[in-house]
């Protein structure tokens, strides 16, 4: 099974969290991070491995493939 990845945009470029969907502990850790970031206002985008965007997701999907967590946007 391919590893799944969550890229969290931050000042380092991004921080990646990788999990095996068959590994319960890894999935739990990724899901907890996902929820914490959502609480902080991050927006989650699901992206296929070929780069095609699936759109915004509101719930953690352990089989999402790739998730981009982007900080909340504000008008400048």
């Amino acid at each position, binding site marked *: 099974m391919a590893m799944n990845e969550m890229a969290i945009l931050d000042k380092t470029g*991004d921080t990646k969290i990788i999990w095996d969907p068959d590994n319960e502990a890894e999935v739990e850790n990724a899901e907890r991070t996902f929820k914490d970031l959502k609480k902080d206002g991050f927006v989650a*985008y699901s992206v296929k491995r070929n*780069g095609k965007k699936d759109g915004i997701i509101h719930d953690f999907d352990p089989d999402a493939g790739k998730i981009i967590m*982007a900080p909340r946007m504000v008008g*400048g």
Partner: protein
Amino acid sequence: MAHPYGPYQGTAASSNTAWDSWNSSTASSTTNGNTWSTWVTEDITFRSDEASEAPQGTWHTWVAHYETSSSSTDGNAWTHWVRVDGGDYQPAQRENAYTLKLGNAKDIPVMIGARHEQLALALMGHLPEKVVGNMHHYNREEVTEDLKAFRDVWNERQRIRREKKAAEAKARAEELLVSLLDEEQEEEWKLSRTVTVKVSDVKSVRIKEGWAGNCEELDENGHVIARHCIHPSTSVPNADNMISQLLMLETDPDEFFRISNRSVVR
């Protein structure tokens, strides 16, 4: 291994290889052969008693002194460093001997004698101003020169570190950005450092490299008709900003236009 304590700030210890609590105005002694025997302070710098070679290789007595510091030969303590009047310091020779420890600055290859270190700590904001005020009897001109040298080294290293981190973050963000582009967008990015997103049959947005006001609204003929200012609420590299704008435009353009500040281009 860095020495586990700072030279002037007490660290309580009860094991036979560490300090009892002490500070610049108090003296404390130990009786264990692996620790210091007696401390005497009369100022903010120290040197060892000349006859400090205890049977077990540790110090007998330290006396506060302006000019010199020497070490024991015990593997857990100082090795040897002496400030020669008007000259340089010789740092400890053993790897487990004294290491300058200023937060994350422990890798700075600057060994500073006791009085300079005290000032360096003050300079870096680690000690209260009143400590600096006690240094009136030192040669201020000399100390100032030494501290300037220390500060120059420190600032240069911090600058290099910041630039390195920023370059790494930029490269990392750009790599992620490219991974999200289709072939046409990737080609555009390589040529002009911009990414264009088609949001309707008659409207596109060209995202330019930058942070604010970097999104140009284009009409069906490719003319710029407005600029949009929208960016993440936290500091990220520019390419991450572009990723956020790109994803929003491709998945939720209405929200993008609702949040952004639009300036019409005439």
